[in-house]
């Protein structure tokens, strides 16, 4: 495995209390593979990735993150700095605010190269032009001297990708790379990342709130909710044989082309506060299948039989996989009708509310 994260716990002390942003997350990414990390805002997906490369400041961190055999979480600041940007590249969400407005695009790429390699300015510049060409910027030799505000949104994100790839990293963390872009540009940027992965062979951690983004890209998918992993599966299993009610909820709220007039089914309610989160499964207040046990005991990630790599943190019987829009819609409408905290009874479950 290229990156193997085990029991990652991240919390932030704030005046209101300790925010438990990530609560025991484990995952692995193989060389050249793509891991999709999916979750709502505040699910801990970005914090997880940023902690691994030491970008969360003022956080309490425990666990381990083995990258090429070395634990990133135990490295000194300087050792980690040397890995960051050279072996692990990062692409952020909003390319306009993520590029420095006062420096030329080419200069910002050169700076990344020169931070890790002793090369002349001329050589760094030559490589910057080459990288801009690689990510599909037209006339790279001319555009290298442009400022970020002279680039379009898609071109800026291409420039960010060029910075991330400047030192040929073995892993690229893409944190919502297409969220700030127009839909047509989104598709171009995703195509670009796929093409570059095929050419350069780097692994990608694709963080997104949009299951549609990773549908034809991820090898493995990890669903996160309230700082915890809800379900992991291969791309196929996740879309066709999901187990966790949260995953089916996410799939149900996904618009599908060719299904005109069909209502989207939202998941009712809000994610829980991460300051002193309640015991039990974090999803139970919004879950159509919640049982008394769900409120008391945290379901561990358990292997779904017959599907290697498929795990789910849910007390429902593990054989109950599969997904149907109709069943799910009915289930959610019922839950909405009863109020977000009402507990629908699954087969055989006893009365939950006192």
């Amino acid at each position: 495995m290229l990156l193997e994260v085990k029991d990652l716990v991240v919390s932030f002390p704030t005046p209101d209390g300790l925010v438990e942003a990530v609560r025991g997350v484990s995952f692995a990414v193989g060389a050249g593979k793509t891991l999709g990390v999916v979750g709502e805002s505040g699910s801990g997906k970005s914090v997880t990735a940023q902690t691994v490369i030491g970008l969360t400041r003022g956080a309490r961190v425990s666990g381990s993150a083995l990258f090429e055999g070395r634990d990133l979480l135990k490295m000194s600041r300087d050792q980690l700095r040397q890995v960051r940007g050279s072996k692990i590249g990062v692409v952020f969400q909003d390319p306009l605010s993520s590029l420095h407005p006062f420096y030329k695009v080419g200069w910002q790429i050169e700076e990344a190269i020169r931070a890790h390699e002793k090369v002349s300015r001329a050589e760094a510049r030559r490589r910057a032009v080459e990288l801009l060409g690689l990510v599909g910027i037209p006339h790279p030799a001319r555009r290298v001297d442009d400022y970020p505000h002279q680039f379009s949104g898609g071109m800026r994100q291409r420039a960010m990708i060029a910075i991330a790839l400047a030192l040929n990293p073995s892993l690229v963390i893409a944190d919502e790379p297409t969220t700030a872009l127009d839909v047509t540009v989104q598709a171009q940027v995703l195509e670009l990342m796929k093409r570059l992965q095929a050419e350069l062979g780097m692994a990608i951690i694709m963080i997104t709130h949009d299951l549609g983004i990773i549908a034809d890209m991820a090898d493995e998918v990890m669903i996160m909710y309230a700082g915890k992993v809800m379900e992991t599966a291969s791309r196929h299993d996740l879309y066709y044989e999901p187990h966790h009610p949260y995953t089916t909820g996410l799939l149900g709220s996904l618009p599908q082309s060719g299904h005109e007039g069909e209502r989207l089914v939202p998941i009712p309610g809000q994610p829980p506060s991460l300051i002193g989160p309640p015991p039990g499964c974090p999803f139970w207040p919004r879950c159509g299948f919640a049982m008394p046990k769900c409120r008391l005991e945290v379901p561990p990630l358990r292997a779904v039989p017959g599907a290697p790599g498929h795990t789910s943190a849910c007390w429902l019987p593990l054989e109950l996989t599969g997904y149907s829009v109709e069943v799910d819609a009915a289930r959610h409408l019922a839950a909405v009708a009863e109020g977000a905290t009402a507990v629908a009874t699954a087969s055989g479950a006893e009365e939950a509310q006192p």
Partner: protein
Amino acid sequence: MARFLARRVLLGVVVLWVVASVIFILYFVTPNDPARVIAGKEATAQTLAAIRHHLGLDRPLIDQYGSFLWRYLQGNLGYSYYNSEPVSTIIAQDLPVTASLAVGGAIIWLVLGVLAGVLAARRPRSLADRTVTSVALFFYSMPTFLLGLLALTIFFYWLHIEGIDIFAPPGYVGLSQSVSGWFSHMVLPWLTLALVTAAIYARLTRGSMLDVLGEDYIRTARAKGLSERRVIYRHGLRAAITPIVTEFGIDVGTLLGGVIVTESVYGLPGLGSQILNSVTDGDLPVTMSIAILAAAFVVVANILVDAIYALIDPRVRLS
């Protein structure tokens, strides 16, 4: 950009003309009779009339206004009523003193204030941050004359009594006479002028840096694996400097007013002391010239700030 600056220069000239005109009007509105100032209380009506004729005060107002503007345009600032010296000579004498004080003070407050602000912003709520913030508050709330007198008492007078003469007594020694003498005479005035203003810059820099350090491009700089020093100064301070430049332009422009107190406390014969004396003496040509010079400082500083913006921010340069 060039057109923008040209417009600013033109506007500056208009501002100076308005200031000069207002000063000219004040000249006639004030109950001062220049002839009496020159001739003294015992002078006869005849003497006064002769002096008025000599100064051209008996000519029509519009005529006087015209020749007033024309004289200033030619750089002829008139003669002091007090000792008949050319005003330009007086200013040429006093300017180096004020320039010594202002340039030294400005450098100290800029460097000290910005560095302290960056230090505080790097670790908000840390001991360093709290120290900078409270020291800044202390100097911020300290009137310049009090700070000056305190510094003079403690660092000159008390040390002098103990036989330790590190700092020179009040007064001024020209740079051309003795570099070390000049320096030892200037240190306390510099600090007096600088510390109060440095406090403002420390607070301003801290706030601006805190905003910038939360920006996405700072996260990008860290993600690129740059050293923390480079992230803070090359990426952070570069973007945070804009409001500091604005403040610096205003402060340098209005510095001529700011040095009055410091020059008086330390007995420095600069433009600040001069304008104070000339106002007390009713020496209008000197007062007017220094006031117009002060306005010119403000105008020039503002144009320079605009030019510096363009150097700092490419978005200004290209729009």
